[in-house]
């Protein structure tokens, strides 16, 4: 009975949430959907901040809500990073950070203050007295740290990174990943950014108008051409590969996966270790003859498994390598016709860029 099972029905005038979800007990679940689709409402139900009548919530076999029994929010071992950072205005930055930490048993403290301070870059901020004078990004980083410091068994994050610049994001993301890797805290993560989702998530839930449109493993969900995600600019495939070789001179690493081999920026891992990478559909071009003298290092021989219109001018392709799903590609309709691409055809996939994400 591990995993999270959530069933909520909640109506507001003009909106109702109607979900019945099973989520894995580990890893990061991305909650993805347009503005007003009920993402925040769902998180609030899970946190026990919204009391959905007849709701049901079980986390790792422990019932948090069912029928008339309702575990109050503070008894739920969860961390919540709100969409709008809500620091306690009367507490210094340090006391904000320590607020939750002090309230859990010493034996439960798996995340240390100095760890969080170092990883979220809070050193310059921790002695500030007045949180209202912090910048937007600073506030949000502190709110994240504060939630992490409760060493929760479930972490709910409502667009935690949207107020951050790319550089801060790049610094924090690895920590969130590590957190999940090391501490095994399941995370439900609301994001508008498919990039973030792909980088972080193991599981994806697509919400639309309060209903679950799709829920599944990241690899499957993001590679499905029939879902709304396929139309996003950032659509693409997420693959799991093993470190196969290192090229120290050029700072490159070769990854092997079911779909072939890819050269990526140096990965500081031992040979054989598994990593996750993301290949955007728009970064994959197709050639019918083996490309020559090109800066594109990654070229895979692939077979077209599916072609689907993405927009009036573009199509999405699913590509298989050795019978298995390997890549998604987005090209113009004209290129499809000029190259005469049809399902089943053998082609060369040129991968311009691979984003290593875990």
């Amino acid at each position, binding site marked *: 009975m591990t995993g999270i099972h959530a069933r909520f029905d909640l109506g507001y005038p003009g909106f109702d949430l109607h979900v019945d979800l099973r989520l894995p007990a580990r890893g990061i679940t991305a909650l993805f959907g347009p503005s007003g689709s009920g993402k925040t409402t769902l998180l609030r139900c899970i*946190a*026990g*901040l919204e009391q959905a009548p007849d709701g049901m919530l079980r986390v790792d076999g422990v019932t948090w809500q069912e029928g008339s029994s309702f575990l*109050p*929010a*503070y008894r739920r*071992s*969860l*961390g*919540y990073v*709100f969409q*709008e950072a*809500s620091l*306690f*205005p*009367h507490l210094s930055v340090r006391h904000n950070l320590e*607020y*939750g930490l002090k*309230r*859990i048993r010493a034996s439960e403290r798996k995340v240390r203050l100095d760890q969080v301070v170092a990883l979220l870059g809070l050193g310059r901020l921790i002695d500030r007295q*007045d949180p*209202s*004078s912090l910048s937007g990004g600073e506030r949000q980083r502190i709110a994240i740290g*504060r*939630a992490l410091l*409760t060493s929760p068994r479930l972490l*709910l994050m409502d667009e935690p990174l949207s107020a951050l610049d790319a550089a801060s994001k790049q610094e924090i993301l690895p920590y969130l990943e590590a957190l999940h890797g090391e501490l095994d805290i399941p995370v439900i993560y609301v994001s508008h950014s498919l990039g973030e989702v792909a980088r972080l998530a193991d599981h994806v839930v697509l919400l639309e108008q309060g209903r679950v449109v799709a829920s599944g493993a990241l690899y499957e969900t993001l590679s499905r051409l029939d879902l709304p995600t396929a139309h996003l600019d950032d659509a693409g495939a997420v693959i799991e590969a093993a470190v196969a070789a290192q090229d120290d001179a050029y700072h490159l690493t070769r990854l092997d996966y079911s779909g072939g081999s890819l050269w990526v920026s140096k990965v500081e891992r031992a040979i054989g270790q598994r990593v996750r990478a993301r290949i955007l559909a728009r970064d994959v071009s197709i050639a019918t003859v083996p490309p020559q003298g090109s800066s594109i290092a990654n070229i895979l021989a692939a077979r077209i498994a599916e072609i689907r219109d993405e927009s009036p001018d573009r199509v999405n392709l699913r590509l298989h390598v050795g019978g298995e799903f390997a890549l998604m590609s987005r090209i113009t309709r004209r290129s499809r016709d000029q190259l005469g691409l049809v399902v089943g055809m053998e082609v060369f996939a040129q991968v311009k860029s691979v984003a290593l994400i875990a």
Partner: protein
Amino acid sequence: MESAFSSAGLSTIWLTFKLAAVVTLILLLVGTPIAWWLARSRSWWKGPVGAVVALPIVLPPTVIGFYLLVAMGPDGPLGHFTQSLGIGPLPFTFAGLVIASVFYSLPFVVQPLQNAFEMVPDRVLETAATLRASALDTFFSVALPLAKPGFLTASVLGFAHTVGEFGVVLMIGGNIPGETRVVSVQIYDHVEAMEYAAAHWLSAGMVVFAFVVLLALYTLNPTGRRK
């Protein structure tokens, strides 16, 4: 003519201070949960309870004093109760004064507290809950500090009102030197006896003392504005 600073005068001042301090303390202890409930509850009872709490203000103090005297007296319901506890009747005792003053000043404490609690955003309370703070813990660690300006006001109004009040005090206390004669009653006596000089001195003393205390409160405790 009795001087304000004779030993009897000092005992009166001390008694006043003690009464006001004890009453303020009790008012805050009693008023805070009531105010919290009034501020946060969605119960139907909210309106009626709020109205009842505010009621004592509309009656003249002497009249409240009269009803309290009757209620606390040997034949009154409260008197019966205290006698059955073996405490004896409360009028003309310090305890009686305290109870009467608490009753009379309650609205002056509950109202500002209720306001302050209403102004505490739901969001910070929710945040505290997600950080493992129980309702009680949240109350003390978040709501209370955020409601500080309300507490300041409540304390000032409660304390000052207890010091300044004399209608109830005169009725319930009986103006017994060293026991229930407080400064306000003393000044009243002076004025009634046309001992104006003594009344002036005592009033001036009160005003200066109050001014200093209030000034200290306001200056040391700047009730920060919300950003």
